[in-house]
């Protein structure tokens, strides 16, 4: 690997490319240069609007600098002028593949400020919705990984499952994607009476199709293995040093899951395992996501069986006016750790809201791990990180 020869200290914004190739002794005497290329914001496979400034030596990437900001919507600033409950629809739009987790993180931060007791039924409903959302996010992630590798069918099988989950969400919350369901103090409304039935039948259908559509089609495929094994192989120290969380971290073997290490909601009462893999490369992240889907199915079944009766909303006033202070809430979203830090000054609106989005932090992997690989390897590496552009840009 040529990664030890890359220039990690230069950045695209301060210094121009010097034209030095990876092996200067050989190349300079022929007067060869690298190609500066831009995998621009308009690209069908960039998971959104990401600009990558690449410096290529033939097909090998020498430098990769991601430039973000093409979807920036100033959400943190706008939240300073909205009342606390009115910020929740805006958190939906951050990481738009894992909306429930964003809402949950924000609401945990506000409840940390308010110190309010959530009824147990509301907690179980929140966990149920979050785990369904995790399924609805991991399955298309696998589809996107394969779409960028060139196989066009698994993503359509993945979206069939996601559509079924979205119809369940529509029956519960009223919207297919921007739910605005988890509220400060509980959830908005109780589940309709026929929903547990629908969720059971969906889970049974998924378990029947899962092995054939997402494992058989992909896992043994020789081309998939040769494209993803050994690509972006990380050690545990490197992953922790980059600040990764979620499947990119767990695929190296580090056993860190917010649901078990900093437990929140009713996760301490549910039995599930943390999935780790020792590969550290793209194939390991694929296996981690597949196994996490199966764990989510286990959690959903436990939630449906154990759900208590009761109210779904705590007794709170109409005005949410937290006392002065700081609140912090963190959840395990499908991409990693999503955390919200709120500073309150005692009025109706927050003084400052900061979102720690996993896609933003996990993107460092691109700058660190891509140099040394070939140009077509950028796509599986983005499949390992699985960023969502609403997440890194806010």
């Amino acid at each position, binding site marked *: 690997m040529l990664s030890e020869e890359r220039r990690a200290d230069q950045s695209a914004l301060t210094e121009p490319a010097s034209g030095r190739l990876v092996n200067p002794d050989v190349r300079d005497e022929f007067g060869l240069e690298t190609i500066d290329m831009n995998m621009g914001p308009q690209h069908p496979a960039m998971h959104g609007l990401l600009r990558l400034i690449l410096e290529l030596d033939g097909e090998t990437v020498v430098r990769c600098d991601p430039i973000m900001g093409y979807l920036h919507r100033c959400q943190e600033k706008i939240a300073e*002028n909205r009342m606390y409950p009115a910020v929740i629809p805006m958190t939906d739009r951050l990481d738009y593949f894992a909306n429930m987790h964003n809402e949950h993180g924000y609401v945990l931060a506000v409840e940390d400020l308010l110190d309010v007791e959530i009824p147990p039924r509301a907690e179980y409903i929140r966990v149920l919705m979050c785990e369904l959302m995790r399924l609805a996010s991991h399955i298309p992630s696998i589809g996107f990984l394969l779409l960028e590798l060139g196989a066009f069918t698994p993503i359509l099988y993945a979206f069939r499952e996601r559509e079924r989950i979205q119809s369940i969400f529509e029956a519960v919350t009223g*919207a297919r994607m921007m739910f605005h369901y988890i509220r400060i103090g509980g959830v908005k409304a109780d589940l309709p009476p026929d929903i547990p039935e629908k969720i059971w039948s969906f889970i049974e259908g998924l378990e029947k199709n899962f092995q054939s559509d997402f494992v058989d*089609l992909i896992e043994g495929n020789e081309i998939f293995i040769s494209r993803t094994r050994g690509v972006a192989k990380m050690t545990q120290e490197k992953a922790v040093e980059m600040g990764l969380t979620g499947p990119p971290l767990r695929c190296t073997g580090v056993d860190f899951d917010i649901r078990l290490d900093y437990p929140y909601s009713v996760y301490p009462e549910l039995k599930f395992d943390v999935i780790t893999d020792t590969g550290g490369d793209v194939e390991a992240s694929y296996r981690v996501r597949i196994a996490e889907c199966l764990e989510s199915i286990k959690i959903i079944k436990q939630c449906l069986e154990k759900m208590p009766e009761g109210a779904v909303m705590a007794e709170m006033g109409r005005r949410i006016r*937290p006392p002065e*202070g700081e609140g912090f809430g963190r959840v395990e979203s499908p991409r990693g750790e999503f955390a919200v830090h709120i500073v309150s000054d005692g009025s109706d609106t927050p003084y400052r809201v900061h979102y720690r989005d996993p896609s933003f932090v996990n993107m460092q992997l691109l700058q660190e791990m891509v140099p040394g690989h070939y140009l077509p390897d950028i796509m599986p590496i983005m499949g390992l990180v699985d960023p969502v552009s609403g997440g890194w840009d806010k």
Partner: protein
Amino acid sequence: MPQVGQGILKGMGVTLKHLFGQKITRQYPEYKRPLPERSRGMLTVDMDRCIACLQCMRVCPDHCISIEQEKRDADGSGKAKPYAVGFVIDDSRCMYCSLCVEVCPVNCIYHTEEFEAQAYNRLELARQFGERPVDPTIDPKPAVKKKKPAKTAPGKGTKGEGGEAPKKAPKKKEEAA
């Protein structure tokens, strides 16, 4: 390396099975699926019940509702009460979050099941419900009134003695299950 028949050929078997299987497309304009009862479509206002309290205008995060209010005796009771002469909902801004629906005290604004909003001009997407048309391009005045005049950063204390504890007012309205 997996054996022959396990890798690519197995995947090709899966796709062949789906080739002859059932298709999941619904042909949209001919078939419209029944929407669940909680679906949030486009908003509409029942102007007979509106009391022009301006709560929906204040809570909307996108500032898509604009109301022009004046005092008028509309129901012949002799007293001049607030009355909405102009009410505009801008569909190009609405994000279907249903905050206005929840906060309305008389349940006069609600979601319909329509979701197909088309227009040739963006300004045509603003629907007027009152007598006098309201200009949707003017941002209605921001609703949140600040209690403290200057925004200073709060000290690094724990929450507790500073602000007001939430009052034990009537429970926040929930929709019926």
